[in-house]
C-alpha cells in the first residue's frame, strides 16, 4: 500500500474496529439502519467521486445506475430465481454498459451542460421504468421473502448481516477509489478534470478515460442498488429512480470533500444521521423545521467550509507534520 502514512493506516484500522463493534454495542435496529444508510450513500458518494471529484464530471443522474442495479437483480430473482449475488454482478455490468452508451455521446459536454444532461438521462430512465410493464411499471416489484441466508442475500431476524455486508461494499468501493486515485489512471482523470485540451496535448485519450470513470462509478452505484432491493424488499420508480437521490449523493460528496478518498464517507457520516434524526425528532410535527435545518446546514457548510469537512482534517493533519 504505497503512499499511506502510518497515521492513516492506524486511524483506518481503529475506525474499522469501531464500526465492526458498533452494532454489537448499539443493538437497536434504528441506529443500525442509520449506519447502513451511511454506508450505502457513502458508497454511492465514493462512486460519484471517482467520476466527479477526480475526473471532473459532475453527474446528477447517479440514481439511474442505482435503479438499474436494484431492478436488474430483483427482476432476475423474481422471474428466473437467479441468485441475487449473481444478479448483483449482472446489474453492475448492465449499469456500466448503459453508462458507456450514454457517456460516449456526452463526451464533449463540460461542466453544467454535462450536469443537465445527466439529469435528463436520469429522468428518461425513470420515465421508461415507470411505464415498462415487464418490471411492474409504476407499481414496482416486491421481492419474495426467502429463507434467511447469506446465499439468499436476505435476513429477517437481525440487521447485523446487512450492516456488515454494506460495510464490506463500502470498503470495496474505497479500495477501488484508492487504486484509481493513486494509479496512472487517477493522474489522467485529474488531468482531464483540469482541462480537456491540455490532457489531449499530453496524449491522454480523453474520451476513453472518461468512459472508464463513468463505468466504474456506475458499477459500484448499481451494487448499492441491489443491496437496497435486498434490504427493503420493495422497489418502485419513486423509491429508486428519483432525482432527489442523485442530488443527495452529490451533496454528500461535496459536504465531505470531493476529490479526496475519505471525503464522501465523512459527508455521508454527517448528512445521513442529521437527516434521519431531524426527521425523527421534528418531522412528525409537519412544520418542515427538519428540512429548514437541513437546508441551512448545507448552505452554511458550502459557505464556510467549501472544501468539505475533509478539508478540516487534512489541514490539521498537515499542521501535525
Amino acid at each position, binding site marked *: 500500500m504505497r503512499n499511506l502514512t502510518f497515521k492513516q493506516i492506524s486511524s483506518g484500522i481503529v475506525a474499522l474496529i469501531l464500526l465492526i463493534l458498533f452494532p454489537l454495542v448499539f443493538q437497536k435496529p434504528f441506529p443500525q439502519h442509520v449506519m447502513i444508510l451511511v454506508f450505502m450513500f457513502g458508497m454511492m458518494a465514493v462512486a460519484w467521486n471517482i467520476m*466527479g471529484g477526480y475526473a471532473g464530471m*459532475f453527474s446528477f443522474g447517479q440514481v439511474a445506475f442505482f435503479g438499474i442495479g436494484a431492478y436488474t437483480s430483483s427482476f432476475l430473482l423474481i422471474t428466473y430465481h437467479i441468485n441475487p449475488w449473481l444478479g448483483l454482478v449482472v446489474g453492475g455490468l448492465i449499469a456500466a454498459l448503459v453508462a458507456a452508451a450514454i457517456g460516449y*455521446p*456526452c463526451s*464533449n*459536454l*463540460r*461542466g*453544467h*451542460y454535462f*450536469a*443537465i*444532461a445527466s*439529469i*435528463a*438521462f436520469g*429522468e*428518461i430512465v425513470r*420515465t*421508461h421504468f*415507470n*411505464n415498462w410493464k415487464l418490471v411492474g411499471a409504476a407499481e414496482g416489484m416486491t421481492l419474495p421473502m426467502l429463507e434467511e441466508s447469506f446465499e439468499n442475500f436476505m435476513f429477517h431476524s437481525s440487521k447485523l448481516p446487512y450492516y456488515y455486508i454494506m460495510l464490506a461494499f463500502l470498503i470495496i468501493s474505497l479500495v477501488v477509489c484508492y487504486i484509481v486515485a493513486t494509479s496512472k489512471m487517477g493522474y489522467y482523470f485529474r488531468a482531464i478534470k483540469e482541462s480537456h485540451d491540455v490532457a489531449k496535448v499530453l496524449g491522454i485519450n480523453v474520451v476513453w478515460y472518461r468512459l472508464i470513470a463513468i463505468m466504474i462509478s456506475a458499477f459500484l452505484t448499481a451494487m448499492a442498488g441491489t443491496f437496497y432491493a435486498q434490504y427493503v424488499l420493495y422497489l418502485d420508480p419513486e423509491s429508486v429512480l428519483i*432525482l432527489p437521490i442523485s*442530488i443527495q449523493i*452529490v*451533496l454528500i*460528496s*461535496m*459536504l465531505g470533500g*470531493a476529490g479526496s478518498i475519505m471525503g464522501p464517507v465523512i459527508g455521508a457520516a454527517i448528512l445521513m444521521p442529521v437527516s434521519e434524526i431531524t426527521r425523527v425528532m421534528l418531522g412528525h410535527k*409537519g*412544520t*418542515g*423545521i427538519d*428540512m*429548514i435545518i*437541513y*437546508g*441551512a*446546514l*448545507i*448552505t*452554511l*457548510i*458550502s*459557505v464556510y467550509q*467549501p*472544501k468539505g469537512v475533509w478539508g478540516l482534517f487534512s489541514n490539521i493533519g498537515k499542521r501535525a507534520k
Partner: protein
Amino acid sequence: MTDQLVQQIVNGLLIGFIYSLIAIGLTLIWGVMNIVNFAHGDFLMLGMFTSFWLYTLYGVDPLFSIPVCTALLFVLGLLIYRYIVSKVMKGPMLAQLVVTFGISIFLANLAVFLWTPDFRLIEKPLLHGTWDIGSIKLSVPKFVATIGSFIISLFVFLFLKKTKTGKAILATEMDREAALLMGINTEWINSLSFAIGSALVGIAGAFLSTYYYIYPQVGGSFGLIAFCVVALGGFGSIEGAFIAGIIVGLAQTLGGFFIDPAYKYAIVFLIYLITVWIRPQGLLGW
C-alpha cells in the same frame, strides 16, 4: 384533427412563454457568474405567494402586484447574493452548485413553516375566463401571461443591448477578465444580475399565480424544466433561453398529445440530449 393540432400548438405556446420568462432570469445569473441557481424555482414560488397574499389580504389583482413582486424579489436576490452566494464565488464549483441548493431547501420549507403546505388559488383575477376563437379555446390568464412574458423579455433584451449597465452585464458574461480590465466593477455586476434574474422570475410568479395553484413545493417542477430550457438555449444567451422555452413548451404539449402523455417530459429531456450531442453549447450558446 387540425383543430386539435392548432389547439395544442396554442397550449404549447402559452406554457412555453412562461418557461421562457422563468428561464431568462436563470440564464442571466448563469451566464454572468456561472452559478446554477437551484433556488430559482423557489424564487418563483415566493413570487407566487407574494401575489397571492397581496390578493387575499389587500385585494390587489396579480397584475398590479407585479411591481411589488419585482421589487421584493430584486431585494431578496441582492441580499442572497451579497451575504451568501458571493462568499462561495471564490470557492470550488461544487460549493457554488450546492449552496443554491441549500437555499432552495431552506426557502421551500420556510414556506411550509410559515404558510402550511396547503394549496392556494387566486380564484378571480381581473382577467379570467376563456375566449372562444372559432373552435380554439384560449385561456385569458395564460394569454395575458404570454403577452406579459413577451413584453418583459423584450424589455430585458433592450436593456442588455442598449443601456450602459446592460452592456456591462453582457461584457462580463462574455469575458470576465476583459470586463475587469475595461474597468467594469464585476462584483457589482454580479449582484445586479442576480437581483435582476430573481426579479424576473418573481414577475413570472405573479403571472403564473393567475392560473396555477400555489404551494411551497411548486418551485420543483418548474425549476427542473427551467434548467433544461436554459441549457437547451445555451447558457448565458437570453435569446436562446427565450426560444428554447417556446420549443420546450411545444415539445411537451405536442409530444404529450401525439405520442404519449406519460412520456411528455421524457421527450423534452430527449430533445435536450440530442441538441447538445450535436451542438454541445446549446442552441445559441457560445
